[in-house]
């Protein structure tokens, strides 16, 4: 059955899972080393064309680190010719003048630089002159080529107390937009959750510091502060609904309704190597699986708020409860909400100095291979 769904507006192209960094909060799939070959340039070009024909206007290039692909210049230029508004989401590592000049020339519209602190290099991140120089160089290039300086910093328990320093750094780099986004607990971040979730107290302090900073800099810098949804009692309207506006393309050519959906069991995600995007979006069983509200169970099914949050995130429901069709446990109407409050309580104790066992899983190939061998599809909560 072909869906009556509106076209996707947003295409996110995860060009590669290769990345020079090892962030403990990385949202890439933990078993990324088990995946097939990356799409070739011509395959990406074809998929981008199909996306435009379908009606998509926004295109994000991400990864891994998209700069690892040496055909990024070609894809950027193709995106512009097709009429996409394109955004490069990068750690900045690998950016140099030759490349940014080619992106500008090719018509790249926007760059978002994420300052990763991979924790291994935490001190580096905050203080080392070497990385700071690198960041300054990237910021300078971005400005020189007339892109707005958009900074993204992922927050978690181990760095959230440094929010003041992070903002000072942003100001020094003359950032125009700063997104302080708390970690979302999927992928590597979920594995590391009990070490990454900040306590309520830490959050409040960080928000206070942020507000004071906002007053000081005024309009010069726009600062967004995103709290972790574990501290909410209603879930986020994940992706604005399954198969509603967002289409994620993985490095090896799978089409997903969100970056995390690959882990959901019992769904066969279509590959762009075998199907065109129109069929994938409108007709594939995977994209229709959680469209609309037919699939919902109680309490969502009869809930007046279901048109607002679509029952929250399917992946979070699955990760925590083992059933992707249940309410997102962030919702306090969910019978599983205690899974959230317990994690929050553990974070409070850790914040109060009760020692937890510090085992962080760094996102690297070795850990990924280990985790894929376990082919751990069972929820770990």
């Amino acid at each position, binding site marked *: 059955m072909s869906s009556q769904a509106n*076209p996707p*507006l*947003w295409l996110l192209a995860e060009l590669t899972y290769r990345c020079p960094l090892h962030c403990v909060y990385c949202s890439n799939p933990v078993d990324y080393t088990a995946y097939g070959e990356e799409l070739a340039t011509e395959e990406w070009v074809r998929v981008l064309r199909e996306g435009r*024909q*379908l*009606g998509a*206007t*926004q295109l994000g290039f991400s990864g891994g680190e998209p700069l690892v692909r040496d055909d990024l210049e070609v894809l950027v230029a193709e995106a512009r010719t097709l*009429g996409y*508004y394109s*955004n490069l989401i990068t750690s900045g590592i690998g950016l140099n003048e030759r490349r940014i000049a080619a992106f500008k020339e090719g018509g790249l*519209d*926007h760059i978002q630089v994420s300052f990763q602190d991979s924790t291994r290099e935490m001190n580096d991140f905050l203080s080392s002159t070497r990385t700071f120089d690198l960041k300054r160089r990237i910021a300078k290039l971005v400005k020189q080529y*007339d892109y*707005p300086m*958009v900074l993204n910093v992922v927050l978690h328990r181990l760095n959230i107390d440094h929010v003041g320093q992070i903002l000072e750094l942003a100001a020094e780099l003359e950032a125009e937009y700063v997104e302080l986004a708390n970690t979302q607990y999927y992928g590597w971040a979920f594995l590391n959750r009990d070490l990454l979730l900040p306590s309520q107290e830490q959050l409040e302090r960080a928000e206070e510091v942020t507000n004071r900073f906002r007053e000081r800099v005024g309009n010069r810098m726009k600062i967004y502060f995103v709290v972790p949804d574990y501290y909410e009692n209603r879930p986020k309207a994940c992706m604005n609904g399954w198969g509603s506006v967002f289409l994620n393309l993985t490095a090896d050519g799978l089409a997903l309704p969100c970056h995390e959906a690959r882990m959901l069991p019992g769904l066969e995600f279509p590959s762009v190597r075998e199907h065109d995007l129109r069929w994938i979006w409108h007709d594939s069983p995977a994209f229709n699986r959680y469209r609309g509200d037919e699939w919902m169970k109680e309490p969502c099914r009869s809930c007046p708020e279901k048109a607002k949050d679509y029952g929250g995130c399917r992946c979070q429901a699955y990760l925590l409860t083992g059933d992707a069709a249940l309410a997102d446990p962030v919702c306090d109407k969910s019978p599983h909400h205690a899974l959230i409050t317990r994690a929050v309580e553990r974070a409070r104790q850790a914040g109060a100095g009760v020692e937890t066992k510090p085992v962080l899983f760094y996102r690297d190939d070795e850990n990924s291979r280990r985790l894929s061998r376990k082919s751990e599809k069972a929820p770990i909560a």
Partner: protein
Amino acid sequence: MSEDSVFELARHYRFQWEQAQQAYVLLYPEGMVKLGTSAGEILKRVDGASPVSAIVADLERAFPGADLRRDVTEFLAHASVKGWIRVKPG
């Protein structure tokens, strides 16, 4: 705003015809505005060179018989408030 004001698109906004929507749209980071017919016709003429008077005259040539001055100035004011366009400095 005066007759001689010259408007241009705000930085990092893009205006284009969208085949799939059969409409003019404005694109910006992570967003899009779909424009109605008259808004589209006006914005199409906001080129960073033509003063308001020229935009009005051109529209009146394209759509004869209508007095469009007010529509145009109202829309330009609205679009400035929204941050889609700005008066070109100098």
